[in-house]
Every structure is written in structure tokens, then in C-alpha cells.
């Protein structure tokens, strides 16, 4: 059982120090200040905000972290 996990975040490979929850992962990425306006999906499934503390990330997960930006 490896202590670090390899995941893909917004198309880039990343290494996690362990099996973090989605919420802990956002803090790990220093995105906590954006939490109000971001949304997360893991392997194509949107993780509701209320579930962030409970959902744990796994090796090889594909994670998308998005927010709203200028658009037409």
C-alpha cells in the first residue's frame, strides 16, 4: 500500500500525501479561500459540497476543480 497517491487534477498529474478527503485536498491545494465558488467532480461525478468531508480520493482519480469565469 503506497503512502502517496497519484491523481490527475485539471489535467495535471499530482501527488497526494495520503488518502485525503475532497475538502482536505482543496485545503492542501490552498484553494480553501475559493471554496464558496468552486465545484468539484471526481471521475466525471460531481461531488456535492456537503459530501466534501466524507468523500475520499483514490489512486488514479481524475479530479476537476472549476469555478465560474467570464463567458458569453
Amino acid at each position, binding site marked *: 500500500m503506497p503512502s502517496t497517491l497519484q491523481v490527475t*487534477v*485539471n*489535467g*495535471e498529474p499530482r501527488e497526494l500525501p495520503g488518502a485525503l478527503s475532497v475538502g482536505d485536498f482543496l485545503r492542501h*491545494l*490552498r*484553494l480553501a*479561500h*475559493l471554496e464558496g*465558488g*468552486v*465545484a*468539484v*467532480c471526481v471521475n*466525471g461525478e*460531481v461531488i*456535492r*459540497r456537503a459530501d466534501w468531508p466524507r468523500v475520499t480520493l483514490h489512486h488514479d482519480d481524475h479530479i*476537476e*476543480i*472549476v*469555478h*465560474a*469565469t*467570464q*463567458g*458569453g
Partner: protein
Amino acid sequence: MDTPLKIGDELFGSRMILGTSKYPNNDVLMRALKAGGAELVTVAIRRVNLNDPSGENVISLLRKSKLRILPNTAGCYTVKDAVVTAELAREALGTDLIKLEIIADEDTLYPDSEKVLEGARVLIEKGFRVLPYCNDDPITCRKLEDLGCVAVMPLGSPIGSGMGLLNPYNINLIREKTRVPLIVDAGVGTASDVTVAMELGCDGVLLNTAVARAKDPVLMAEAMRNAVDAGRKAFLAGRIPRRFHAEASSPQAGKIAV
């Protein structure tokens, strides 16, 4: 006296929805939105830049100005991408309004009608209030309305082209059959295009490039606002029918004979 624009159960005093993209900077954007009198503005959903997440997010500016936000699914080519994008938008912004956009190719950015219909069906089932960007095709618009979309938004011409309403006859046909708000989305180049759309009885217009890429976006936003107002009033006032021959304005009786 005009009534407000009603989308779903939300009322809007302004009949112009403005995009927030392509402005020279956020200051010009915010001044243009104010000059245009916009109450509903569109945004896109994109990846957070993990290497520089600190930049000021435009959403906080929009919220501070009490603007209501309509996220889009711009850039989606598949139903799956559009549905996930809509779900992410709902989660990030706390709104179930979605401008559904599923395009077929990048040269025309034309909507893929088959996928737009399927995407609308799935999203409505998931509780979204869907405003679909669609072709100016009365049949597609009717099907979208029948599915339960809260508005239909046919294009005037391709996105960003500035060519105006290429098929006003179709917009007219769509107007005759549509009971939900009819909003022309895309193709507007200048104020007269907006006026034509409103004179045809459209309930509103959605524009972005024509304002954002004008030499003076703030002044153009004001022009567009006046154009919406002029076209709407002309529609409500009821224009005279077109005729092939002249009809004198001054009385025919009482002319002198010398």
C-alpha cells in the same frame, strides 16, 4: 405599459442579457453592464488555475453589483459534458438556471440540435431551468418548449459574427408559435440588429461580442439598451403594414386649383 420579462418564476426589468467575456478588463466590463442596465449576465465554467488561484474572481464583482447569474455550457460538444458542466455550475453558483449550449463544430459554433434536445431533456429531469441556445428553426424551438425549457434562444447568426438576424422570417415563425420567452442569442452586430429582433416580438436579446469588442463598450452597451427599448416599444405600438404603393400623408381634400 410594458410587463417585466419573466423567465421561469423570475422577473427582470431589463430585456437584455449580457455576456461577460472579451472585455478589455473587469472595470470596463462592470461599467458596460451598468450602462446596459443588465440584470442577468452569463458566465462560463472553467478550471481553476491551480498555479495562480489568487486572481480576483469576476463572480464576486457581479454579485456585489446584485447581478443575477446565468451560467453556460459553452464549449461542450457532448450531452455528457454539458450535463456535468451544468451540475458543476449549480454547485459552484447555487443556481439551477442554465444556458444550454452544445455545439457541433468550431467553425460555425452552430448548435447540434439533436444533442441540445437530449441535453435539455436530461437537465430538466434533473431539476434545471434550461435556456437552450438553438438554431433559428421553428420545429426545434417547439420541441424545446414542449420538453419544458423556460425559454428558447435561437441564434440570429453565428456567435461573434456580428451579422445580425439572417432569417427574420424564421424568427417571426418562432414568435408565432412560442409561449415561453423568445430570446435572440448570438449574431448581433450593432444596435439596429437588436431593434429588429425586438420589433419582431422577441422577448429579449442576449449579446456579448457586439458590446465587449466595440471600440467603446460602455457607449455600445448604452446604445443596445436604447435599441431594446425602441424595438420593444415599436412592437407594442404595432407597426403599420408594409404596402407596395405610396399613401399620402397630407389630406387629399381641399387642395387648391390654379
